[in-house]
């Protein structure tokens, strides 16, 4: 597939502060890309640079084989939905959506038809004459989306579009936006700080931290193959350990020796293991088995999260594990229960600090 948008070596300074450090990435046509990161990581700045609402200090942006680096926003081809929706409060739903259709001297019928089409698309045909103050948050969000899509832009930019909504509405709209995007095939870049949102919606995630891209890849890749401690920690929940190299396939954590399936290169390293990869072991002959005590059990519904104090050789350490609720209840595991857990060699991942 063709590269639709390419961002090259973007630097952005606000005074002495560097918000974006040499950021480069590509977006394919029709792709849904999420820019994910904690607040202050530069993700919104990056989106605004792509929109032309901020000007980059250095770097190039190419959209559809055209250099748009220096173009003002009204000469770029994009639709945008803001966190606040920015619906015009004094205009009806219809006039909000029609706002971007009117310059091209289109006649009234064409505009009306397009508005109807979009309202049907977002499922709000009954609300055509309402004002935004009469709509729920989710409905306002969909009107904003319809307005952004009305002129059929080549690129859709979504700036934290769901963060102002209730959890239930958010989950529902997540799917809806994703389906809509797939149906229309519009290239989309969404900014969010919510990893769950990014994991469920994106074809590809660009994870940012402190103005740099930490890692990019498919949601599965980012989850299962985190490259850095930040990636591992930001996406999902994880355990991080400082470790020392013993041999190519074994390492030491707090005095205990563990086997690891990955090739170990550095002498000092960080390893991570996901809570769900940690199992309670019945068989002491397995590899990487440690004894520990349950300190706390958090009930999460189908899962129970256990905080376990693990007795490593030289020092105790807290480890988070996920268990099926059924298992814990059936085996009568409680606070202060002694358990053996296995940190299996294939689940241990080496990450950059």
């Amino acid at each position, binding site marked *: 597939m063709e590269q639709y948008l390419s961002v090259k070596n973007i630097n952005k300074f606000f005074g002495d502060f560097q918000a974006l450090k040499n950021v480069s990435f590509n977006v394919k046509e029709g792709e849904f890309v999420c820019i994910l990161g904690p607040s202050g990581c530069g993700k919104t700045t990056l989106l605004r640079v792509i929109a032309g609402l901020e000007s980059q200090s250095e770097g190039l942006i190419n959209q559809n084989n055209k250099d748009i680096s220096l173009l003002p926003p009204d000469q770029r081809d994009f639709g945008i939905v803001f966190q606040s929706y920015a619906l015009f409060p004094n205009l009806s739903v219809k006039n909000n959506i029609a706002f971007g259709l009117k310059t091209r001297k289109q006649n009234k019928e064409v505009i009306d038809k397009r508005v109807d089409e979009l309202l049907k698309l977002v499922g709000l045909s009954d609300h055509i004459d309402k004002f935004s103050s009469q709509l729920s948050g989710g409905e306002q969000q969909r009107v904003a989306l319809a307005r*952004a899509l009305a002129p059929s832009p080549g690129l859709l930019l979504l700036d934290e579009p769901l963060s102002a909504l209730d959890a239930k509405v958010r989950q529902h709209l997540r799917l809806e936006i994703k389906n809509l995007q797939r149906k229309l095939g519009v290239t989309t870049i969404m900014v969010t700080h919510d990893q769950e949102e990014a994991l469920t919606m994106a074809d590809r995630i660009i994870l940012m931290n402190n103005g740099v891209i930490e890692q990019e890849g498919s949601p599965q890749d980012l989850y299962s193959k985190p490259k850095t401690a930040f990636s591992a920690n930001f996406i999902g929940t994880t355990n991080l350990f400082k470790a020392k190299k013993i041999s190519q396939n074994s390492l030491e954590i707090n005095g205990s020796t563990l086997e690891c399936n990955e090739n170990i290169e550095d002498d000092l390293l960080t390893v991570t293991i996901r809570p769900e990869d940690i199992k309670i072991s019945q068989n002491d002959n397995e590899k990487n088995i440690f004894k520990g005590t349950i300190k706390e059990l958090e009930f999460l519904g189908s899962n129970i999260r256990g905080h376990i104090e693990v007795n490593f050789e030289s020092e105790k350490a807290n480890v988070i594990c996920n268990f099926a609720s059924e298992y814990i209840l059936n085996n009568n595991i409680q606070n202060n229960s002694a358990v053996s857990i296995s940190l299996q060699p294939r689940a241990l991942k080496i990450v950059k600090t």
Partner: protein
Amino acid sequence: MKKSRDDYLTIFFISIIGIYIFIALAFPMYAILSKSVENKDGIFIGFENYQSYFSNPALVYSIYNSLFVSIITMVITITLAFIFAYALTKSRMAGKGIFRSIAMIPILVPSLLSGISLIYLFGKQGIFRELLMGYEIYGPIGIIIAEVFYTFPHALLIIITALSIGDARLYEAAKVLRSKPIRTFFTVTLPSAKYGVISAAFVVFTLVITDFGIPKVIGGQFNVLAVDVYKQVIGQQNFEMGAVVSVVLIFPALLAFVVDRIVQRKQVAILTSRSVVHEPNKNKNFDTIMFIYCSFISVFILTIIGMCLYASLVTFWPYNLTLSLTNYQFDLMDGGGWDSYYNSIRMACYTAFFGTIVVFAGAYFVEKSRSVKTGRTILHLLSMMPMAIPGLVLGLAYIFFFNHPDNPLNFLYGTMAILVICTITHFYTVSHLTALTSLKQIDNEFEHVSSSLKQPFYKTFFKVTVPISLPAIFEIGIYFFVNAMTTVSAVVFLYSSKTNLASVAVLNMDDAGDIAPAAAMGMMIFYTNAAVRIVYVLITKKILVRFQKWRTKTTS
């Protein structure tokens, strides 16, 4: 980044407004500064004028007098206004609406009207002169009482705003922690209102030190800076010395202005959009005390205005007390007659119309446009300047600038236009801030959405920004109108025989000893402003509601 058509249009409009403000403010101010270091023949003489000013004890003494009355008035007004505002915001007494309306009356009349009223009350033939126990009303006592009347609503409005931002959640927290009312007052109420009170204090100080109507009418031999400017220019035709006193007068006003801006900036930080409005509880004793207090203040205000009303209707004070409209036959007196009243109405309408357009457009570009950052900053700074410049000084500066034979704008001198320009400039800052506050409440992303939808900014401006801002736009218009009707200081040097104004007529008739007609003309201004204000309330209640359906939350 490349400039779009919007950017060029923005630059164009900002330049126009910028040029306007330069002509209406910056150039005249430069003219007055340079005049103060020139001799009569226009030759630069350094600080010689200042030397002769400071070696004249009579003139220098005015500085002390000015500071004295300003500070005393500031203390009295702030104390009275704080308690009044506290009663309006933190009690559940009856009649809050009426008290508030009465407290606003002084805004609707020229400042010197209160001086005239005091003369009727406590002057040589006054009704209550015995109450002064031998003291003279002509002098600092009269000035201070009149200034308190005049500045009260200005201070009240600011303090009410400051007190109403007190976050209800803090009051609830204090209550749950069993804090005594007194402690709550000092730990919750006062800190959140602190900046408002300081700001109000500086506003009062500036209003008093730059006011010239009241000391002119009731000051007697007690000279203050503002009256000195007037006397130097009108009495002695000594323009250079007038310029010197003006510069001296700017200093305290400028200082107050700078401090106020610094304080205001801090105020913003404690205001969060998540604050919850505090609803006071019923407390019978407290509510009763507050009611009595507010009644007392209201009686004071109504007495002053009522005295004027009565005086304007009495045929010949104090000898023939039958009521008649004799004093309203302005055409029989000097001072411009009824024409001056009609001129004032015209001037006020023009000022309201053009002033609102210029101010709102200026504030829009300052707040909402994306390009020309430097231009916008300069525009904003210039918009804040007029607050620091006394009206009298501005008027004098206009003489120097517009009356200069080499100035191509010389033709404006003596016309209605120059009165309108001067008045707009004089009241620019407050209007600018009103517009800015209203615009700040509008989502900044509107402009971004429009440009992403390839719409020119003016479409968003007319279809969205202006309709949303209508209440603020009306507010600005009314503010300009009312102030254009009452202002004396900014226009007293600039009117001509064809453009005499009602407020100036009050001054001149009083000067000529026609005090009753002066009171009558002052009352004409009051009737007009009160009527306009009432019509405004009706408009906002009835018509605006109909055009602003979208503001209602109800789902149909």
